[in-house]
C-alpha cells in the first residue's frame, strides 16, 4: 500500500508542534522550517497529482482495516487537484507573511499555519463524513488563531463572531451526522452511496433531512446565502495573508458539497437527488447578488475584496448546482481561478494598505509604488470580475456555456452577467479612488477631517517601499492566473477527466469498498 497519500496530513501535523515547541524562540528557524515544510508539501502534492492523473481512485486504509469499518483516505483527481491548489496557495501566502513581517506580529503563526494546512489537506483527502467533520474542526481551530493573529479590537470582535458562527455550524454538522447514521448506519461516503441507493424513495425522509442539514453546514463554510454573513467581516478583519489563505477555506465548503452531494446523495439516488439542485441554485443566485452589491457598497478596501469572494462563491455554486458534467468542469476551473484571484487581491491590497496606512476608500497622497500597486490591483480586479484577458473571463464563459437548461439560463445568465457588471463598477470605483485620485491634489475641504489620518499615513508610508520579495507572492498569484488562462485548454481537459471521475460513483464505491490489486497500488 502506498503511504504517500497520508503525507499531506502527517507532514504538517508533525511539523506544527515541532515549530510550536522547539522553534518558538527562534523566528528564523521557525520561518525556515515552515517554508521547507510547505515546499515539501507542494512537492508531495505534485507527486500525488501525477499519481492521480491515471484516473484511478487510490485509497489508503489507516491501520489496514477494510473500508466501511476503518478510516480511509481517498485520493482521486479532484482531491489531488485541491491538495495541489492548497499547497501552491500556502507557499505564496507564507512567503508574503514572512516578507511583510505579519508572522512576527503575534505568536505561533507558523504552528497555526501548519495545523491549518493539515486540516485543509485532511478534509480534501478523507473518505468518510465523520473525519470530514474532524478535519473541519482542525482547520477551524487553527483558523481561529490565525484570524485573531496580532489582535486589535476590530479583529477580536470579528473573530468572536466567526468562532461562534462556526461552533454553531459544527453542532449542526454533528446533528446531520447523527441523523445520517441513524438513517443509514454508516458514515463512509462510498458506503453511504450504496446504502442510500437501497432506500426506497418513500422512506428516504430521514436521509433527506440529513442531506439538507449537511448542505446547510457546507453552505456555511462556502459562504452561501443566507449563511454568508460571517465572511465579509471575517476576511476584512483577518490579517491579509490569512485572508488570502482563507480563500481556500470557502473552497473546502464547495468541495464538500461537490463530494458528498455527487457521490452520496447525488444524481440517480432516488430519494435525495433533487435536494442540491432545488436549494443550491436559488441560494447561489442570491449569493452572487449579495456579493455584487457588497462590492458596490463597501466603504473599505478589504471588505470590498471579501464581498467579491462572496460573489465568486456564488458563481462557483451556481455551476455546481447544475450537477451536470459540463457545469462541474466549469465550476472546478472557476474554483482554481477564484482561489488565486482572491489571494492575489488580498496580498496586493495588503501591500497597498500598509503603505497607505488604512484601507479606507478615500484619497490620500500617493504612495511610493502607487503605479505598481495600481497595475497589480487592476489586474487582480480584472481577474476577479471576469474581464477578458485573464482566467476569470474563461471561467465565467465556461459556467455560462454550461448553464443552458431552460429553467436555469435566464436566472443564471442575468445573475452572473449583472453581478460581473456591478463587480467591475465597484472595483473601478474603489481602484480609482485609492490609486488614481491619490495622485491628484487633495481638495482642501476634506483636509480637516482626514488630516490626522494623512499625517499618520505619511508616517507609515515614509519608510517602506515594498521590497521585491514582498511583491513577488502577489506576482506569483497573478502569474498563476495568467498561466491558467494560457493553458486553459489542457487545464479543462484535465478537469473534464476529474469531473468524469467524480460522476463515476460506481468506480468510487468499488475502489473504496472492494479493494482489488488494481486499486491498491
Amino acid at each position, binding site marked *: 500500500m502506498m503511504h504517500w497519500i497520508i503525507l499531506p496530513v502527517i507532514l504538517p501535523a508533525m511539523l506544527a508542534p515541532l515549530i510550536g515547541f522547539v522553534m518558538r524562540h527562534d523566528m528564523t528557524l521557525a520561518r525556515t522550517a515552515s517554508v521547507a515544510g510547505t515546499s515539501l508539501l507542494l512537492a508531495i502534492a505534485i507527486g500525488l497529482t501525477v499519481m492521480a492523473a491515471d484516473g484511478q481512485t487510490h485509497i489508503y486504509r489507516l491501520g489496514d482495516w477494510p473500508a466501511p469499518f476503518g478510516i480511509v483516505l481517498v485520493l482521486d483527481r479532484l482531491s489531488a487537484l485541491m491538495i495541489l491548489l492548497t499547497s501552491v496557495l500556502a507557499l505564496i501566502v507564507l512567503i508574503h507573511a514572512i516578507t511583510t513581517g505579519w508572522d512576527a506580529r503575534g505568536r505561533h503563526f507558523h504552528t497555526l499555519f501548519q495545523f491549518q494546512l493539515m486540516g485543509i489537506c485532511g478534509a480534501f483527502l478523507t473518505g468518510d463524513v465523520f473525519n470530514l467533520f474532524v478535519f473541519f474542526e482542525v482547520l477551524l481551530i487553527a483558523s481561529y488563531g490565525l484570524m485573531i493573529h496580532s489582535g486589535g*479590537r476590530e479583529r477580536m470582535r470579528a473573530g468572536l463572531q466567526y468562532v461562534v458562527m462556526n461552533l454553531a455550524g459544527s453542532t449542526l454538522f454533528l446533528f446531520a451526522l447523527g441523523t445520517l447514521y441513524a438513517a443509514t448506519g454508516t458514515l463512509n461516503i462510498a458506503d453511504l452511496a450504496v446504502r442510500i441507493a437501497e432506500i426506497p424513495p418513500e422512506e428516504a425522509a430521514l436521509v433527506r433531512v440529513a442531506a439538507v442539514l449537511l448542505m446547510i453546514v457546507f453552505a456555511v463554510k462556502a459562504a452561501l446565502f443566507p449563511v454568508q454573513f460571517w465572511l465579509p467581516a471575517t476576511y476584512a478583519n483577518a490579517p491579509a495573508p490569512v485572508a488570502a489563505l482563507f480563500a481556500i477555506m470557502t473552497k473546502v465548503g464547495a468541495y464538500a458539497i461537490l463530494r458528498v452531494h455527487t457521490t452520496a446523495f447525488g444524481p440517480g439516488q432516488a430519494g435525495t437527488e433533487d435536494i442540491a439542485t432545488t436549494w443550491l441554485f436559488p441560494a447561489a443566485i442570491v449569493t452572487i447578488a449579495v456579493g455584487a452589491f457588497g462590492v458596490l457598497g463597501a466603504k*473599505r478596501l478589504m471588505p470590498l475584496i471579501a464581498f467579491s469572494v462572496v460573489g465568486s462563491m456564488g458563481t462557483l455554486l451556481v455551476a455546481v448546482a447544475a450537477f451536470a458534467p459540463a457545469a462541474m468542469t466549469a465550476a472546478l476551473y472557476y474554483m482554481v481561478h477564484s482561489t488565486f484571484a482572491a489571494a492575489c487581491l488580498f496580498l496586493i491590497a495588503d501591500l497597498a494598505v500598509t503603505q497607505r496606512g488604512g484601507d479606507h476608500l478615500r484619497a490620500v497622497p500617493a504612495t511610493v509604488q502607487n503605479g505598481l500597486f495600481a497595475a497589480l490591483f487592476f489586474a487582480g480586479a480584472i481577474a476577479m470580475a471576469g474581464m477578458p484577458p485573464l482566467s476569470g473571463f474563461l471561467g465565467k464563459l465556461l459556467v455560462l456555456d454550461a448553464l443552458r437548461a431552460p429553467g436555469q439560463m435566464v436566472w443564471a445568465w442575468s445573475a452572473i452577467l449583472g453581478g460581473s457588471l456591478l463587480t467591475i463598477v465597484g472595483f473601478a470605483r474603489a481602484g480609482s479612488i485609492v490609486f488614481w485620485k491619490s495622485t491628484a491634489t487633495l481638495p482642501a475641504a476634506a483636509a480637516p477631517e482626514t488630516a490626522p*489620518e494623512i499625517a499618520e499615513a505619511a508616517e507609515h508610508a515614509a519608510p517602506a517601499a515594498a521590497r521585491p520579495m514582498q511583491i513577488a507572492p502577489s506576482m506569483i498569484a497573478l502569474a498563476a492566473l495568467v498561466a491558467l488562462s494560457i493553458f486553459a485548454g489542457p487545464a479543462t481537459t484535465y478537469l473534464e477527466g476529474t469531473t468524469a471521475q467524480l460522476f463515476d460513483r460506481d468506480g468510487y464505491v468499488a475502489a473504496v469498498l472492494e479493494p482489488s490489486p488494481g486499486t491498491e497500488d
Partner: protein
Amino acid sequence: MELIVASTVGTLTAGGVYLMLRLRTFPVILGLALLSYAVNVFIFASGRLAIDQSPILSRYGEASYTDPLPQALVLTAIVISFGMTAVLVMIGLGAYLEADSDRIDIEAETTEPDPQSDPARGAPEETKA
C-alpha cells in the same frame, strides 16, 4: 426511554438556541455547551437505544449488542467540543478585555473610534463593512 431521550435532546437544543440568541459572550458560551450536550446525546441515540448490552460482539453469547460506533463518535465529539469551548472562552475573554463589552456584536454599543484599535492597519477604524 425514547421519550426521555428525545425530550432531553429537544429541551437542551431549545435552551441552547435561546441562550445563543442572547448575543452576550457568557450566555452564548453556555448555549453552545448546551447544544453540544444535546448533539452528544443525539449521536448516542442515533445507533438505536439498547439497555444493558455491551458494545462488543461476543463470540460466545447471543448476537445482541449495542452499536459501538456512536460511542466512538461521541467520544471524539466531546473532546472536540471541549476544546472548542475552551478556545471560545479565551477568545471571548480577549474580546471583552479589548473592547470592554461582552456583546458578541460589539459595534452596536460602542461606535466611537478606539485610538488603539488595530495597530496592524495603522489607522483607526471608523466605518465597518
